C-alpha cells in the first residue's frame, strides 16, 4: 500500500470520486495512472475518512490528549505511588504541596492519585458500556432492518418505548439495587444506551439491503446470519464507530451523575463523580483542589470525545456523500 504522493485537496477529491463512485476499478485506474508511471493504489473509503479526520487539527489534538490522559490514569500510579485504599485521618484536606501535588481529600487520600483511579473507572466504564451498547444495538438494528415488515415495526416500537423512559432516572433506580462494580454499572448503562445505535444501524441496513451486492449474496444463497455479519454489519460500521465516541462520552457523564448522587461505585473504588459529590461539602471551606482538577478532567474528557466524534462524523459523511 503506497500513499499517493500528492495530498492536495484537488487530488483528494479525484481520488474520492474515483474510489467510491466508479463501480469497477478500471476507469479509476486509467484516470489516475500517470503516463508510463507505476499504478497507484486507490485509497479505500476508510483511508479517505482517516485523512479527512486527520485534517481536523482540533480533533487530532483532542485524540492525542485523550490518549495521554489514558496513559496518565493507567500508568501514572506506577510512578506516583499513593495509598488509595486506607484512609488517613491525620492528612485530611491538606492543600497542594510537594508531597501531595494536588492536596488530599476528606479521607486523607492523595487527590492526584485519586484522579488517576477515578479516571481508570471512567475509561473502563466508557469503553465497556459503549461496547455493550454497540453490540446489542448493531445486532438488533441489523436484524430489525433485514427482516423488515411487521417484525421490524414491532422491534422499533419497543425501541421507542425504551427511549421514552428518562434515561438517568431509570438508570439511577436500577443502580440503587445493583451498583458497585465497574462491570455492573457498565452493564446497566449499556442496556439503556443501545437504542440510538440500533436505530442508526437499522436505517443503514434499510438502504443497504436493496443494494446489488446484498441482492447478489442473497441470490447465491447466503443465510440471513451470514448476510448480517458478513455484509450488513461491516458496511454499517462507519455509523456505529462515530456513535461509539458519543456513547463513551455519555457513559462517562452518566457515571459521573451516578457518583454525584451517591449511586456510583462502592469504595474503595471511586469515580470522578463520587469525588465531585464529596467535594460539594467542602466548596464553602475553600478547598478548591477537591473541586476544580477533577471537574476539569471530567469536562475535558467528555468534550474531547464529543469533538472527536464530530470530526469522525464529518469524515465519514464526506465518504458517504461521495459514494
Amino acid at each position, binding site marked *: 500500500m503506497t500513499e499517493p504522493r500528492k495530498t492536495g485537496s484537488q487530488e483528494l477529491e479525484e481520488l474520492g470520486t474515483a474510489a467510491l463512485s466508479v463501480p469497477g476499478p478500471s476507469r479509476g485506474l486509467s484516470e489516475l495512472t500517470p503516463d508510463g508511471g507505476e499504478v497507484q493504489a486507490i485509497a479505500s473509503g476508510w483511508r479517505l475518512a482517516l485523512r479527512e479526520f486527520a485534517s481536523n487539527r482540533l480533533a487530532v489534538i483532542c485524540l492525542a490528549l485523550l490518549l495521554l490522559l489514558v496513559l496518565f490514569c493507567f500508568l501514572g500510579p506506577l510512578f506516583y505511588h499513593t495509598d488509595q485504599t486506607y484512609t488517613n485521618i491525620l492528612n485530611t484536606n491538606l492543600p497542594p504541596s510537594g508531597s501531595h501535588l494536588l492536596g488530599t481529600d476528606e479521607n486523607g487520600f492523595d487527590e492526584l492519585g485519586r484522579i488517576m483511579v477515578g479516571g481508570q473507572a471512567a475509561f473502563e466504564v466508557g469503553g465497556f458500556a459503549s461496547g455493550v451498547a454497540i453490540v446489542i444495538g448493531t445486532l438488533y438494528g441489523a436484524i430489525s432492518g433485514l427482516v423488515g415488515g411487521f417484525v421490524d415495526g414491532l422491534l422499533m416500537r419497543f425501541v421507542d418505548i425504551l427511549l*421514552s423512559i428518562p434515561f*438517568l432516572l*431509570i438508570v439511577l433506580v436500577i443502580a440503587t*439495587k445493583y451498583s458497585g462494580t465497574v462491570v455492573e454499572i457498565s452493564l446497566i448503562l449499556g442496556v439503556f444506551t443501545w437504542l440510538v445505535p440500533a436505530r442508526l444501524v437499522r436505517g443503514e441496513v434499510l438502504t443497504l439491503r436493496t443494494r446489488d451486492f446484498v441482492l447478489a449474496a442473497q441470490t447465491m444463497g447466503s443465510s440471513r446470519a451470514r448476510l448480517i455479519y458478513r455484509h450488513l454489519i461491516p458496511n454499517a460500521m462507519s455509523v456505529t464507530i462515530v456513535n461509539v465516541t458519543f456513547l463513551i462520552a455519555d457513559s462517562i457523564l452518566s457515571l*459521573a*451523575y451516578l457518583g454525584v448522587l451517591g449511586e456510583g461505585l462502592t469504595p474503595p473504588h471511586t469515580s470522578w463523580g463520587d469525588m465531585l459529590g464529596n467535594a460539594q461539602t467542602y466548596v464553602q471551606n475553600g478547598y478548591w483542589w477537591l473541586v476544580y482538577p477533577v471537574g476539569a478532567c471530567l469536562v475535558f474528557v467528555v468534550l474531547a470525545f464529543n*469533538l472527536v466524534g464530530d470530526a469522525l462524523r464529518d469524515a465519514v459523511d464526506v465518504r458517504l456523500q461521495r459514494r
Partner: protein
Amino acid sequence: MLGYIVRRLITAVIVVLGVTAVSFAILHFLSPTPAYAVLGTKATHAAVVSWNKQHGYDRPEIVQFFSYLGNLVQLNFGYSYKLNQSVAALFNEDVGRSAYLSGAALVLSLIIAVPLGIAQAVKRNSPGDYAATAINFTLYSMPSFFLGLILIQLFALDLNIFPVGVGDNITTAWQAITHPRQLCLPIVTLALLNVASFSRYMRSSALDELAQDYIRLARAKGLSERAVLFRHLLRNASLPVITLVGLSIPTLLAGNLLIEYLFNYSGLGLLFYNALGNEDYNILLAYVLVGAILTVLGNLIADLAIATADPRVRLD
C-alpha cells in the same frame, strides 16, 4: 391532518402503555413488595406474607399491573409507605416548584439561545462565533452539577450576590417566584445547560435559512438588515426550536434532579432523590412514569405544533 392527529394519538397511547408496562416490570423485579421497607428488614416471613395479602402484593404480577393501570387512569399513583402519604399528594405538593424551576430555565435558555444562534450564523466564522461555539461546546460537555458548583463558588461565595442554596422558607411555587434572588442560581445553571444545545441547533438552522432565496429576495428589495433578520429569518429559523423544546423534557427532568439536590430546593427531583435512598419504589415508579409520559406528550405536541406552524411539513 385530522387523520394524522388520530394516528399519532393512537401511537402515543400505545407507547405510554408500553412504557408503563416496562417501567412496572423493571421496578417490580427490583422490589416485588414494599413489605420489608414497612415492617423492617428483620420482619418474619409470616408477617411479610400477611402484609402482602393485606395490601394486594400477593396477587399475580399481571393482575397487580392492571390494577396499577386502573389506578393510574384515576391519577392515583400509589402510596408511599415511607412517608405515609399518597404519591399523588406528595407530587401535588412539589410539582409547582419544579415546574417553575424547569419552566423559568427553559424560557431563559430560549431567550439567550435563539438570538445567540442567529447572531452566530450571521457573523459566522468570526472570532465571536468561534468563542460562542467554544463556550457552547464546553457547557454541553459539562455536568450540571459541576457548573452549579462553579457558579456557587463565583456568585455565592466570592461575590456574595446570591445565597448558596435555596432557603427553607420557600415552600410554595409563589414564594419561589417572589424570591428571585434565591432561585437565580438554580435557574441560571439549568438554563445554561440547555443554551448549549439549543444555540447549536439555532446556529445551523439559521445558517440553512440564510442561504435561502427568500432571504436574498428580502435583501434585494431593500429591506433593512434588521427587518430581514427579525421578520423573515427569525420565524423560519426558529421552527426547529419547537422540536427541541419537545425533546428537552428528559434533560429538564434529569437537570431538575441534580439542581434541586445541589441547591437543596425541595421539588420533585429532590423527592425522587430521597426516595432512592429510602427505596421508596412507589415514588420512584411514579416519577419514572410521569417523566416517560411527559416525554411522549412532548414529542407528540412538538410534532403537531411543527405541522401547524410549518405548512411545508406534509402529513400523510
